[in-house]
């Protein structure tokens, strides 16, 4: 017996132009303060940069399909891998996750918008600005930054052209702007979550996605300033001739590494925590079961935030850090696997014994979970100092983090896009194309990134434009996988574009899911809720008889009708 129906949601309203609706496309190019518009702006802008960063990767894999540096000049390859990493992180991953946070958090907590709508828009519009700066750096004399996305001095201070405006300085400017944009966004989201939850929504009635977004944004707040400090000092060294990190002038290049990694390690949790939240939202819906151990899962997000601040030196095990420091950070790094493991087990327990439906979002979430699991295991290996000494700076690390970033984050984002697409646009997507997209992505990602592990074990360094012939076999496999990944975006783009324009109109709750966002129309009206709902139970009440909200007339109403 179904306890859900497709009838109009109790808080539906109609008539006014709606943010995600296809006839509303002009709104997405405007300075709108509506969090739903901004959310979609973030997501689509980010996706464009994802394709661009992916294009760079295609060229890289084209170079690496043969041992010699025969496709592009070495300086070009170095620029490619630098900008691939930079763009994928600052122009794709952070913005797309900000986009989902923007879109979903107010809806999920029962608010009309974010705490500071205009600040929200300002933070978004900075994104295309620093994106343009990064792309522009390809076209100036000397080309873009070629020092890797870490920009370690002294390499990043070498500036062969001698120009004041060079790829590295533009890179630093873009990263600083990105930091400011992210901090503004974080202030907004943290304030919204603390202060604007609907009546009745105590902390332990808030969806797990909001918990993970909060945890991630807290990291941005304490971590980004450290990166900004390091970047400012590096820019001074580069442009003015100060000596913070320049060993020739008495500076300390290892100090830069500490500044850099103090942020950039927690940053990887910024990248994965919201995806954990997405998994926590998606598994219950397609298993028709509550999120197992929801409270512990929620709290584990904050534990991860706290621990994430204490592990950064594991990126510097080979730098010449003292033994006691290596051991300390080895233990703290391994410890993070405990709250993470709690989540993984909780998801397995959520799925187990449920009524599984392998729709596209569920496929991506399951695939993402398995790939994340694999990367977590290689992560523990990397935490073990003696082993890390061998594989640090090799392709083993590249394989590890691509399993996380592509395997978990990208696939998690795809899962989220499919899952919330009907809500955002008011259209249903084509399930067949979605499944095709999943198959190509899952195969492509494994084919591309699994071979990197044996490559690394055998000693192939990362960031190389050329390599010794014994690595050729694995590189050919990886390149084929890479090209397949490029192809895999095609059914996705086709699906999204055609569905958005002419897909079947979507009901308020196509998945019969439980959550405040499913109570409103697809797409939601301008101010989300006619009346702010009053929450009366914990989230994920599948199989339980508790309505989520009190009905508008005061009677107990089932959330599902």
């Amino acid at each position: 017996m179904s306890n859900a129906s497709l009838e109009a949601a109790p808080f539906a309203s109609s008539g006014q132009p709606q943010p995600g609706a296809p006839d509303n496309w002009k709104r997405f190019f405007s300075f709108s303060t509506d969090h739903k518009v901004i959310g979609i702006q973030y997501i689509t802008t980010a996706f464009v940069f994802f394709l661009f960063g992916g294009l760079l990767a295609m060229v890289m894999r084209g170079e690496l399909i043969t041992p010699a540096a025969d496709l592009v000049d070495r300086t070009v390859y170095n620029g490619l891998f630098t900008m691939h990493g930079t763009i994928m992180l600052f122009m794709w991953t952070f913005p797309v996750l900000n986009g989902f946070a923007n879109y979903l958090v107010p809806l999920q907590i029962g608010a009309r918008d974010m705490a500071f709508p205009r600040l929200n828009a300002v933070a978004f519009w900075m994104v295309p600005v620093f994106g343009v700066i990064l792309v522009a750096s390809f076209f100036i004399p000397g080309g873009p930054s070629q020092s890797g996305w870490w920009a370690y001095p002294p390499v990043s201070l070498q500036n062969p052209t001698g120009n004041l405006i060079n790829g590295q300085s533009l890179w630093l400017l873009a990263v600083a702007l990105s930091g400011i944009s992210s901090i503004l966004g974080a202030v907004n989201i943290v304030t919204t979550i603390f202060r604007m939850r609907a009546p009745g929504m105590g902390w332990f009635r808030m969806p797990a996605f909001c918990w993970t977004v909060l945890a991630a944004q807290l990291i941005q707040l304490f971590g980004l300033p450290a990166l900004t400090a390091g970047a400012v000092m590096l820019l001074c060294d580069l442009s003015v001739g100060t000596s913070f990190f320049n060993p020739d002038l008495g500076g300390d290049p290892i100090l830069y590494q500490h500044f850099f990694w103090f942020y950039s390690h927690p940053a990887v949790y910024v990248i994965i925590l919201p995806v954990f939240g997405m998994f926590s939202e998606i598994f219950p819906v397609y298993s028709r079961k509550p999120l197992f151990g929801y409270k512990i899962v929620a709290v584990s997000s904050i534990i991860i935030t706290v621990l994430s601040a204490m592990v950064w030196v594991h990126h510097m095990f080979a730098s010449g850090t003292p033994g006691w420091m290596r051991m300390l950070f080895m233990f703290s790094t391994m410890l993070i696997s405990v709250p993470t493991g709690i989540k993984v087990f909780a998801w397995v327990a959520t799925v187990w014994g449920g009524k599984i439906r392998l729709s596209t979002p569920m496929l991506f979430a399951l695939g993402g979970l398995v790939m994340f699991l694999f990367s977590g295991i290689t992560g523990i290996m990397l935490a073990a100092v003696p082993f890390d000494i061998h594989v640090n700076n090799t392709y083993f690390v590249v394989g590890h983090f691509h399993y996380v970033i592509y395997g978990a984050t990208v696939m998690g984002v795809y899962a989220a896009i499919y899952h919330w697409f009907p809500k955002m646009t008011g259209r249903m997507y084509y399930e067949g194309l979605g499944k095709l997209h999943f198959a190509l992505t899952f195969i492509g990602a494994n084919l591309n990134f699994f071979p990197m592990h044996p490559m690394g074990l055998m000693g192939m360094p990362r960031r190389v434009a050329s390599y010794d012939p014994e690595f050729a076999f694995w590189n050919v496999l990886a390149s084929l996988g890479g090209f397949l990944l490029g192809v895999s975006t095609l059914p996705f783009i086709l699906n999204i574009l055609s569905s958005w324009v002419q897909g079947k109109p979507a009901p308020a709750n196509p998945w019969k899911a439980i959550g405040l966002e499913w109570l409103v129309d697809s797409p939601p009206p301008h101010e989300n809720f006619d009346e702010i709902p009053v929450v009366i139970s914990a989230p994920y009440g599948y199989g339980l008889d508790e309505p989520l909200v009190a009905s508008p007339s005061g009677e107990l109403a089932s959330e599902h009708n």
Partner: protein
Amino acid sequence: MNPLLQALLENWPVSTTNLDTTTTAQGASAAHAGHGGHGGHGGHEEEDHRMFGFVVFLLSETVIFLSFFVGYVVLKTGSGDWLPSGFEGLDTQEALINTIVLVSSSFVIYIAERFLHKENLWGFRAFWLLTMAMGAFFLYGQAVEWMHLPFGFTSGTFGGTFYLLTGFHGLHVLTGVLLQGVMLGRSFLPGNYERGEFGVAATSLFWHFVDVIWIVLFALIYLWR
């Protein structure tokens, strides 16, 4: 008006006429308004969240200063003798006077806030202006000190960190004085405080923040040998 500029002005910590806010800010004590926030009651969408957001922002700003401080400490302890050749050390006297002026100005601005709270606008303006004068004095003193120093930004790690720290802090002092100027101007607008004193409270909090940073900075750079 350019929409970006408009957005910036409207989100500036001043009382504006177009935001839906109610009078909840109460001077410096509003700094604690954000704790233990829970979605509570109906009508919360008219609550003023600006102070909470501003405090969150200041906490983040603190980290950037902390990062510079850490950099200073590491570079100082890592190098044996890092003062530029021929330079004996900084003049603590002048800096101490500046410090006293700046720290005292925190009390002055607090008094100004008390006047405003009691709706004594002229008392408020007088002490507010005095704060600005003291802030300006500090900046002037900083500039004079800079001009008389025999080393520059690129004179080794000491020169670099000295100017970076004092310069970044000075930028914040300047911002504080400018904000105070804006608040002073707005105090002449009729009905400016009908929706609370957020602008004044935030500017005041910012000023205290700048002062505390200076105390740490002074100890690190001028006192610690």
